[in-house]
């Protein structure tokens, strides 16, 4: 059980860092999707089954589709790519920094000797759907607004310019 958690968490981190470091934007998007997939495994193991499904479909699926749509709408000309290589140079420091930060955190955790909480049991009587529809009406209302927002965003931001601004 714990092994799967460690492995999927590690994969999530590695794919995430890959997504940040990879200078090809398409591969970065795929890295993000893989990171998302690892997270959804993690969520499933941790007991959040519904969230895991959503993670897989929305974040790993939909968001990647959005990014790929964005990429296909914008093909950088060749000379521009050269400029973007600078990204790669700047991001090359990232693993080192991350390892440093990770070591620091580990040392901190070891020296502070904090009393860490344990993972509790998954309560059987709670159903996500009940909680969502019964208790989180405000969030649902917010989601409706968010989706409306997204609709307008697609309509406004992605359309080709027909009329120039005066």
């Amino acid at each position, binding site marked *: 059980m714990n092994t799967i958690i460690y492995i999927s968490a590690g994969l999530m981190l590695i794919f995430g860092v890959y997504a940040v470091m990879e200078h090809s934007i398409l591969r970065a998007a795929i890295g993000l999707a893989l990171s998302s997939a690892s997270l959804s495994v993690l969520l499933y193991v941790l007991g959040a089954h519904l969230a895991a499904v959503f993670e897989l479909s929305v974040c790993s699926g939909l*968001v990647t589709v959005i990014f790929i749509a964005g990429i296909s709408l914008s093909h950088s000309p060749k000379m521009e790519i050269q400029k973007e290589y600078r990204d790669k140079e*700047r991001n090359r420091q990232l693993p080192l920094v991350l390892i440093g930060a990770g070591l620091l955190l580990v040392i901190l955790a070891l020296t502070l000797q904090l009393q860490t909480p344990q993972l509790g049991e998954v309560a059987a009587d709670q159903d996500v759907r009940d909680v969502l529809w019964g208790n989180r009406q405000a969030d649902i209302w917010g989601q409706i607004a968010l989706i409306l*927002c997204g609709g307008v965003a697609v309509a406004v931001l992605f359309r080709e310019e027909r009329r120039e601004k005066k």
Partner: protein
Amino acid sequence: MNLVTVLLIIGLLMIFAGCWCLMRTYHLLKITIGIEVAMKAVTLFLVLAGRISGSLALSETFVITVMVAEAIVAVVGTGTAVGLFRKYGSMDVRNLKQLKG
């Protein structure tokens, strides 16, 4: 070093990577990807918090809502980036020099 600590550290590193991307990358879409990477870690934190405090169902509803928000942010970010691409013909942040003062 138990499970919770390890997951917290991994999450923090991931947020760090996302913020790094936000601050230091030149590519507009990459910046949006950076936001998403950091959001992954936040999702993990929320579920972890649910497990620790024993209200997993509640945190699951949070996670679902966050995902919707995440997707819309990706839409808006990509849309703006594409708009900028149409203006400049490139996705380079260094082109953004209109606003100075």
